[in-house]
């Protein structure tokens, strides 16, 4: 009985936000306290459930760390399955952590800025959880559309000309990418006759030589759709504008949206094009490696060039995506475990940073940034200010002290400096890239590795420079020292994410053990395949409507 309930909990991260979100839709918008209570409590429940799922995926005594959940009890290659393994459980946990922080943050004021905020927010969480849990390519498309539809609403939340303009571009780019997604999926179905990821992994090595080209074309088109989501360099120009325009709680959840693209690429490239994929093995890893490096470079330059904090955060998203893509492109298990740690760390940091930005900018004149830069460029110094000497030993208001302290912490996290977890993540990545056979052998791979190492370090440097500059402008030389009005729940949300990063630092050993076993099972996906197909591995290739 208890195991049955435990099994059904796999679908809870999808069903719970769906039901609560739909119920909230029927409620009048004026009953806001009740709506807020319901959505916060369901997100908190989601957090507890996802913690249980992580515990379950990691701590199972059985040989298998993967549980598959056939929807409607149809057997695997024919019906749609949800698959819980360490990676998906971890991503679901990350989603609910960010979701809870964003939602609590929004209670102070943002949830009043437009209609149906809670419904959109919960549907967004549902789409994210579904995309992480599903084991079926077309089902993945459906969940992508759900999360995108909700995100279109969230980008526009609060309205205003800037949001509508950014939202328009965001929607067009993603709709076009969805077409590519469909073309890729149908091309793959056309040659392999299956949409189930595990089944597909079994069929790819047995494909005829003439079909292989179609399969690889399909996978490439599908990959482009995910790379648009992940924000790889030539496909990412929409991203900083849209993220900067979105309201703070929405932007915090968007921090994990690019990671959905990264997650799918990681999952599919290792499952479908791992070592077992015959001639198709390691298909596309070069594109991920070089594309990721270009993204890091573009993001780092963008970080330096921006003059507002929200765009700075948008470009940090690109740097983090690029780092992850390049790490997937490196393609060994050590790099993957480092990348997973980096993923968790950077998602929490960027999500928290988006929340913090809104608090900091609340107290500022919108033109102040441009003015400060212009003054610096023309060599103005505030000589008048020196004359009217400020009272020595003036007390910093507590709010400003908190905001400044958190800003420093996020700067350390994003730049990857010790003592916080950003450093551990970057150090693990650098070790993984430099350590294995890659370095010391000479040849083109040798050069690429060193360039990647240099890019990683330089991107940290550029983040540090940009954050220092913007921090000095904001906290040390305010044009008028207005203390932003900040509510307790907002501070709590930011502090929650920061404390998690600190916990990630303190318990880095435990987390790394988890990441290493995750990476190991990703690189050897037989457990995943067997668990989904329930021992049908031998029968694969015969069942189904193979054309």
């Amino acid at each position, binding site marked *: 009985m208890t195991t049955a309930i435990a099994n059904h909990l796999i679908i809870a991260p999808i069903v719970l936000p769906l039901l609560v979100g739909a119920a909230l839709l029927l409620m009048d918008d004026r009953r806001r306290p009740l709506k807020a209570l319901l959505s916060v409590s369901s997100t908190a429940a989601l957090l507890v459930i996802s913690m249980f799922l992580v515990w379950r995926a990691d701590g199972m005594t059985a040989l298998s760390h993967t549980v598959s959940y056939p929807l409607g009890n149809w057997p695997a290659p024919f019906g749609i399955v949800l698959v819980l393994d360490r990676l998906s459980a971890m991503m679901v946990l990350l989603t609910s952590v960010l979701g809870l922080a964003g939602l609590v943050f929004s209670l102070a004021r943002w949830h009043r800025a437009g209609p149906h905020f809670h419904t959109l927010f919960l549907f967004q969480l549902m789409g994210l959880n579904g995309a992480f849990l599903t084991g079926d390519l*077309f089902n993945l498309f459906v969940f992508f559309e759900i999360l995108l539809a909700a995100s279109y609403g969230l980008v526009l939340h609060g309205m205003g000309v800037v949001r509508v303009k950014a939202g328009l571009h965001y929607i067009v780019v993603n709709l076009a990418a969805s077409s590519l997604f*469909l*073309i890729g999926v149908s091309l793959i*179905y056309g040659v392999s006759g299956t*949409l189930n990821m595990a089944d597909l992994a079994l069929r790819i090595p047995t494909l005829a030589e003439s079909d292989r080209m179609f399969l690889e074309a399909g996978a490439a088109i599908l990959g482009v759709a995910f790379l648009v989501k992940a924000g790889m360099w030539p496909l990412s120009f929409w991203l900083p504008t849209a993220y900067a325009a979105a309201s703070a709680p929405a932007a915090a959840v968007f921090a994990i949206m690019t990671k959905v693209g990264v997650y799918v690429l990681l999952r599919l490239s290792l499952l479908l094009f791992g070592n077992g994929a015959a001639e198709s093995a390691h298909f596309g890893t070069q594109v991920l490696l070089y594309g990721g490096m270009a993204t890091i470079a573009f993001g780092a330059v963008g970080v330096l060039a921006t003059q507002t904090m929200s765009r700075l955060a948008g470009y940090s998203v690109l740097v983090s995506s690029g780092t992850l893509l390049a790490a997937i492109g490196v393609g060994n298990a050590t790099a993957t475990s480092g990348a997973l740690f980096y993923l968790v760390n950077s998602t929490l940091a960027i999500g928290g940073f988006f929340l913090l930005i809104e608090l900091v900018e609340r107290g500022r004149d919108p033109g102040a940034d441009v003015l400060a830069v212009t003054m610096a460029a023309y060599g103005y110094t505030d000589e008048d200010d020196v004359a009217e000497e400020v009272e020595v030993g003036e007390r910093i208001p507590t709010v400003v002290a908190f905001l400044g302290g958190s800003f420093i912490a996020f700067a350390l996290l994003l730049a990857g400096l010790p003592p916080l977890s950003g450093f551990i993540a970057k150090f693990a990545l650098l070790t993984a890239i430099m350590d294995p056979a890659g370095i010391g052998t000479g040849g083109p791979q040798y050069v690429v590795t060193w360039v990647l190492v240099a890019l990683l370090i330089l991107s940290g440097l550029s983040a540090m420079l940009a954050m220092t500059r913007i921090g000095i402008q904001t906290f040390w030389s305010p044009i008028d020292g207005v203390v932003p009005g900040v509510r307790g729940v907002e501070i709590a949300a930011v502090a929650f994410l920061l404390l998690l990063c600190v916990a990630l630092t303190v318990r880095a050993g435990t987390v790394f053990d988890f990441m290493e076993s995750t990476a190991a099972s990703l690189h050897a996906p037989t457990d995943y395949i067997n668990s989904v197909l329930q021992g049908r591995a031998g029968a694969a290739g015969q069942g189904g409507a193979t054309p």
Partner: protein
Amino acid sequence: MEIIIAVAIGVLTGSGLWLLLRPRTFQVIIGLSLLSYATNLFIFGMGRLRGNAPPILKPGTAGDISQLADPVPQALVLTAIVIGFAMTALFLVVLLASRGLTGTDHVDGRESDR
């Protein structure tokens, strides 16, 4: 039949892409619609084109796979049509909001000054 479908997909994709890159929001939405039609036809084509073949079994018969059409792409097309329709409607709302807020139907919210 294959050549007609292929040409139709090609023409739809070509016109859709051209319209997608135009500066007016209305052209963009028509372009997106044409692209999604092309995509739907493409998905349908991936189930292999076959006339006079039902996608379901007759009750009480074992069925012969050579006499049946593949039902999966047809189901996928239905889903894709519904989702595409919903997204077009949603985009239409944003388009109207943008027109109302910026006073122009240019995708950037202001006329480009050449």
